[in-house]
């Protein structure tokens, strides 16, 4: 059993991570952190860079949790990666961050949170920053 969290280096992502850490501490399970990018644009501000990864790892180590960081660029949507991680690690909870989106932005880019909410097989905790 585990808790899967979709992490991005933004206030929403940090909020999601914080709640995920709290849930894992209560449940005594494993934390799976997913940070991913499709990698087809030259720049993706939501993909953690090496220094950010180090900060993240240090933080998880300090919390003394059993954790796993899935940090990959495989050309797939973040929602797919999160759902796959959830299936693979038999998640009993998925945590995602929510942010305001304009209708046009959502139309063009889609919404990761929405897809996770609709397609997840376990409860989803949606956190606002």
């Amino acid at each position: 059993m585990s808790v899967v969290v979709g992490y991005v280096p933004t206030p929403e992502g940090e909020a999601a991570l914080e709640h995920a850490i709290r849930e894992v501490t209560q449940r005594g399970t494993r934390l799976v952190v997913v940070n991913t990018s499709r990698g087809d644009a030259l720049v993706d501000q939501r993909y953690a860079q090496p220094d950010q990864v180090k900060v993240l790892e240090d933080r998880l180590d300090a919390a003394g949790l059993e954790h796993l960081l899935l940090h990959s660029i495989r050309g797939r949507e973040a929602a797919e990666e999160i759902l796959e991680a959830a299936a693979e690690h038999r998640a009993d909870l998925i945590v995602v961050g929510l942010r305001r989106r304009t209708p046009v932005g959502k139309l063009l880019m889609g919404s990761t949170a929405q897809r996770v909410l609709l397609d997840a097989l376990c409860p989803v905790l949606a956190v606002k920053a």
Partner: protein
Amino acid sequence: MDVWGSLLDGFATAATPANLVYALVGVLLGTAVGVLPGLGPAMTVALLLPVTYALEPTSAFIMFAGIYYGGMYGGSTTSILLNTPGESSSVVTAIEGNKMAKAGRASQALATAAIGSFVAGTIGTALLVLFAPVVVGFAVSLGSPSYFAIMILALLAVTAVLGSSRVRGFSSLGLGLAIGLVGMDYTTGQPRLTFGVPLLADGLDVVVVAVAIFAVGEALWVAAHLRRTASQIIPVGKPWMGKDDWKRSWRPWLRGTAYGFPFGALPAGGAEIPTFLSYVTEKRLSRRPEEFGHGAIEGVAGPEAANNASAAGTLVPMLSLGLPTNATAAVMLAAFTGYGIQPGPLLFDREPELVWALIASLFIGNALLLLINLPLAPAWARLLQIPRPYLYAGILFFATLGAYSVNLQSFDLVILLTLGLLGFAMRRFGLPVLPLVIGLILGPRAEEQLRKSLQLSSGNISGLWSEPVAVVVYVVVALILAWPLVARVVRRRPATDASALAAIVHPTSDGRTDADPSTTPERSEARR
């Protein structure tokens, strides 16, 4: 004075509201393609050519000039914030610029790049105003044999001086010349290289060829080699410079301009060599050489000025002789022909309004670029977040539309795809694109001069060197061809600068210029 009177007339034409809008559109587009690695002003101008045939030539060229200068500005933003040069001319900028950004001095790096580009662009354009009429005055006295010699020089220099491999350069030149030959021979009416296809008798449209090589070839290459990456842009506030930065920047700006302009004006100029020379000079002259390699502002100011000055320099031979020395100039030259305007020394006489409006718009464009780049550089960098598949799908769409709209025949789409595959193959095998484009555009015109010279001398081949200028130029050609042998002897003595130049210029300048993204780390890694 005559020149100033004409220039003022040019400003009057360029400053009409409609033309100002075209200049603004041009600089916005130019900055955008400059920021995005892989896209360049040459590709953009080629894509826009068919669209602009409906416009007044003056308006179209004002827009092209904006794109051309804009590309030079945009490249530096990507270099500094991402360490991926947007253009080959800003490779050197990335060395110090990115270090500055990492040290938290991105604002200052962007500011010195933008202001330096403005200073160099303005001085360069002023020099263009001074020199172009002088060159024209000299050029009108030249006969066909001299022209032919100068064109041969331009073709050889572009092929042999730039680039890592002469064999590849000359293969590319040969391809360009061959493509230029397709169609009816204009003096005898014989079909050449048409393979019995009547549709080929009119020759290949330069627009279709340029779009195929630049846009389709690049899109196919990216599709085949999309290396997935996701880096972050270094966060930056509003670009600004302190007093100390100004003090350290103004001399490099001027020295960079002094390097850039003459190199741009020479055939085989390009911006790579002057930017590198400027970098080396600044490093040597700096009072704080220890800062080089850790983000020295001089190392951004000098090269950025050099690349903009060389952009201005390139326009001297293009406007006064009809000689293109880089890919964008070549495509713009093709545009002249598309509008039925004969490029060459008579351009200033026949189309004074167009030429001077173009030059005036360069001053205007430069000022606009400073205005939109200084406060907005971080916003431009957000363009890098566009997924590349979307970007290249759009480019392919425009390429197809443009190629079809030139003649409204579907046969052109076949040519587009075939030559697009050629462009892809050239990238795959490391053939530079520039010699092909220059050969394609200069080849038929060189042939015309060759025919004329031979007709004047009744077919006697000695007619080719009957003018003193022609003889001098052929000597220069011989020197260029013999240079590798000479260099091998000279290189026995190790020179640190020479090897450093080789190390840096080598991967960047294999004949590929603005339209050509080979210089991005992604590309070079893919090739290894």
